[in-house]
């Protein structure tokens, strides 16, 4: 198992290098530079700024220079917010994003699994349609629609919850977490319903039933264990997606998170910030995929055998 994890970590190094290279050349190919603005910037000023940030060097040289800094764990100063280093900005923005993604995932898991299991017990009945239709709402409404609706209803009309901020006013984390988690709750509901149905119709469950095991025991001990496998393979990348996709929710609820920094960096041509965030997120994605795989292996003895025996 340990070897398996170590191997995966080593394998991800070239992945990260590739991500770095592709992003680097792509952002430098994008039209417009970090210093352009509506009021014409005098050419001599642009020249000085380019010199200062080495943007006047050939692109490959810039890339090598960047890699050099990267090896020291230095993402460099942000171009748009030059008094801050990218490392600082990531450190400042990530906790909020991570917390948001965590709450959203918990919300999604609780609601999604509940709805999925309830629905799978009596397929094609009201007990199936109602939770699944409710789950569908999460998928049908993009977060930029759901967010403002929740915000209007609970924040402005009912005045129950704050509409902006993160950790500044009590309760300001509720609406963003629900908004971000809703779509994933729906996905989990559908995936778990699908795999529950699959499993409940399999022979070993029938055997268990025939043996007279209680329904709850069958569902929670036997079926759920199998049904959760696809949910977990979905969850690894989903959490990574949640982190990167939290941009919309962070914007709507004015959360000082990394997702917001990141997307704005792309529009601002904040080269170092884009690079730093891309590498950071890529790293996170690798980690979460690995975690999902490890969990899968632990949950499924057959795969476990294969992993330890096969390598």
């Amino acid at each position: 198992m340990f070897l398996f994890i170590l191997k995966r970590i080593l394998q991800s190094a070239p992945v990260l290098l590739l991500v770095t290279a592709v992003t680097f050349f792509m952002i430098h190919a994008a039209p417009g530079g970090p210093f352009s603005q509506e009021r014409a910037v005098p050419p001599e000023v642009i020249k000085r700024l380019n010199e200062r940030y080495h943007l006047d060097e050939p692109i490959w040289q810039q890339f090598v220079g960047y890699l050099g800094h990267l090896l020291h764990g230095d993402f460099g100063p942000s171009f748009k917010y030059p008094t801050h280093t990218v490392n600082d900005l990531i450190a400042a923005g990530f906790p909020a994003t991570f917390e948001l993604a965590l709450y959203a995932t918990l919300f999604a898991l609780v609601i999604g699994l509940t709805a999925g299991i309830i629905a799978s017990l009596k397929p094609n009945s009201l007990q199936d349609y109602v939770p699944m239709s409710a789950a569908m709402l999460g998928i049908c409404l993009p977060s930029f629609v759901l967010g403002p609706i929740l915000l209007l209803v609970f924040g402005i009309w009912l005045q129950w919850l704050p509409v902006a901020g993160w950790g500044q006013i009590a309760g300001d984390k509720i609406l963003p977490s629900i908004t971000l988690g809703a779509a994933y709750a729906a996905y989990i509901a559908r995936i778990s319903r699908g795999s529950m149905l699959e499993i409940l119709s399999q022979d070993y469950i029938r055997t268990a039933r025939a043996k007279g095991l209680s329904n709850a025991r069958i569902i929670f001990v036997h079926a759920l264990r199998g049904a959760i496998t696809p949910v977990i393979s979905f969850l690894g990348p989903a959490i990574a997606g949640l982190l990167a996709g939290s941009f919309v929710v962070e914007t709507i609820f004015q959360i000082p998170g990394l997702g917001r920094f990141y997307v704005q960096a792309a529009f601002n041509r904040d080269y170092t910030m884009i690079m730093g965030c891309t590498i950071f997120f890529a790293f996170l994605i690798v980690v979460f995929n690995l975690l999902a795989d490890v969990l899968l292996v632990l949950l499924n003895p057959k795969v476990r055998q294969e992993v330890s025996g096969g390598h």
Partner: protein
Amino acid sequence: MKYSLHIFLIFISLLVLSACEKRKTLVEIGNEQQVLHVGNPDEIADVDPHTTTGSTEHNVQTALFEGLVVQEPETLEIKPAVADTWSVSDDGKIYRFHIRDTAKWSNGDKLVAKDFVDTWHRALLPALGNQWASYLFVIKNAEAFYKGELKDFNDVGVKALSDQDLEITLANNTPYFLQLLNHNSMYPLHTKTILKFGAIDERSTLWTRAENFVGNGPFMLNEWTPQKLISVVKNPNYWDVQNVRLNEIRFYPIQSEVNAERSYRAGQVHLFDKLPAEKVSSYSDKKDPALRTFQMYGTYFYRFNTTIKPLNDVRVRKALAYALDRESLVKNVTGGGELAAYTLTPPNAYGYTSNTKIPYDPNRAKALLAEAGYPNGLGFPKFKLLYNTTEVHQKIALAIQEMWKKSLGIEIQLENQEWKTFLENQRTMNYQICRSSWVGDYVDPDTFLQLFITDGGNNETGWSNPVYDQLIKNAASATNEAERFEYFQQAEKILNDEVPIIPIYTYVRNRLVSPSVKNWKNHLQDFWVYKDLYLEPQATK
């Protein structure tokens, strides 16, 4: 299954319970503690006025610094600030300021005349890359120093005669010079602090961090957490601290106007930058006292690329301009009470209103287009209208596309690009017609008419007229206001005859300012002034 239902119900009831008790909003708490909550349109790049240019930064800088003089927002009258008195020579070229004895920096240091000399010296150091450097070029020899033609800063027209007396010699008579002094590019900086954290001409050092910062404004930097909060608190060393009633201002970066409006309604900010046009009527209909509507010194216009066919033909440009029903645009499309514009300079700026204009005249537009060889738009080449991606620009572009189609028979394509790409294409003139705007740096026609001098950095139309250039030069060296304005009138007439741009509307800003905020004043350039503000708790509804 029952368990999961229970979990679900418990979750929902927790949610409801936690929310039910009536909270006090930030605004209500702020009113009691004299803490102003402000929605700023973006995260600031830095606090240093020499390395930043945006209004976002400016909104914070006006709290942290103060110039020699300030401007009364509504009347634009110049009032004493760091300088308590000043005198001007008869030819308008030599200004002498007396710096008040009580002027201090936030760390308690005395603020002296030399601080201004050192600050402006820094502003003109080429290595700093100050984008506002040209602002100081009104000062004698400043431009030569900036360009390296002059090595000794002592030859530049800024001198500290004593700790208290500052003498400034200008290159020309510049009637708007006192206005410039209220601009962020002219604020004094504490150069000793700057030197503590790096070379004097080094950009973006740590001197602007809250724990290092030293300024001279009514407030001083207290906290700066990127994308979250900038907090400034009352500066105890400010010379007029007894008249500063706010204890703290908290700036939140809110990128979307729609979100900002919701924060306002939820009582999380007292005021924010701009009320979106669609929301204006819902406030104006019920005569909400929070709604402030005021004209700005800015113009929304379209640029022509005058170097390509057929837009190099003045008749075509005129036809396109005359065909635009700007009255209908501001009435039906923009919706924020904007004023239709028929010339570049906004009306009534310190007594200057252009006496020529680019009219709306669809019949002449048709005739001109036929004259240029495209009767009813026949054979008119396909071209693109470029704008940057926002709802407002899109609505206007769509309406204009339809107007040209209906009245001239011309089909155009729209192309929206995100901001930086758009800027790049505008800068390199890789467009045919593009959307543009300009907000005056100071209230004087000069700030607008300067744009279109030959090869001006902000010309970006390829248009050039030597007579126009000469008139702008003449205005700069004119000795009295009537003469200056006459040159500007003539220059603007040329602009309106040759139509390198189509003025569309004069900006009007709609802003919500909570009624609990007292003394908030609108300013033609939308400078935010906090010194006199105070908060009065509102009777609860």
